[in-house]
């Protein structure tokens, strides 16, 4: 079971150019969401979006800038919630830019969905546990279908 989102993308542009798109609200809006972001550590900002009809999400993500290392690393907290307030989640987004001969490697890590992280830290065997559970479930459903 995955506990985070991790992606790596290659761009032909330089880290400086990619960085602009990660940190300038007018550029961020074009591919991500409307935001009042500022690349200042400790700065609190929001992403806003129009939630799809039927989506439980409230259309606002509350964030705080955690780390700014120009052209290299950017991270912010990412706290979302649902309309009815039944579900909230705290997580962290980390962007890492690595200069490459022909551009930039951009890494994204979105994790720390608090309790999940806590879960895995708490017991490193958790993933194995879930795998085992899946096996168990599969075998028990076989057993019951035979009976």
């Amino acid at each position, binding site marked *: 079971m995955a506990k985070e989102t991790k992606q790596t993308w290659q761009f032909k542009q330089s880290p400086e150019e990619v960085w602009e798109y990660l940190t300038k609200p007018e550029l961020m809006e074009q591919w991500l969401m409307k935001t009042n972001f500022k690349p200042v550590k400790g700065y609190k900002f929001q992403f806003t979006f129009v939630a799809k009809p039927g989506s439980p999400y409230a259309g606002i993500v509350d964030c705080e800038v955690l780390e700014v290392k120009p052209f290299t690393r950017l991270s912010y907290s990412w706290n979302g919630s649902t309309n009815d307030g039944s579900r909230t989640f705290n997580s962290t987004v980390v962007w890492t830019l690595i200069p490459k001969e022909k551009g930039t490697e951009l890494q994204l890590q979105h994790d720390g969905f*608090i309790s999940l992280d806590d879960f895995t830290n708490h017991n490193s065997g958790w993933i194995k546990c879930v795998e085992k559970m899946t096996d168990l479930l599969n075998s028990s459903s076989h057993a019951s279908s035979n009976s």
Partner: protein
Amino acid sequence: MQAQTLDAFQVIADPSRRQMLMMLSKDNMTISSLAENFNISRPAVSKHVKVLYNAGFISIKDIGRERYCTLKQEGFNELQDFIDYFDKFWTNKLKKLETLLNNKTNKK
């Protein structure tokens, strides 16, 4: 005692409930045998069990006088769906970024 319905993340945020899931991942257990492993009151154990049940992490079967708890996939699926949702979300956004950057380069 009121048993709330919590979402999957709230359910596993509690250490006792995590431990119960761990124990149940090894074998099915009765509520009484689960309770023996905890230094909390029996009603408190029952409450945790109810929370796990309500959120789809376990099913409960009455056999004779005993109530047997078995893990259920549903609750775990919600956790996985959530992570999958963000994976798709970011793939979609980063594709847009790629297009934007490429268009910009081509205009030069």
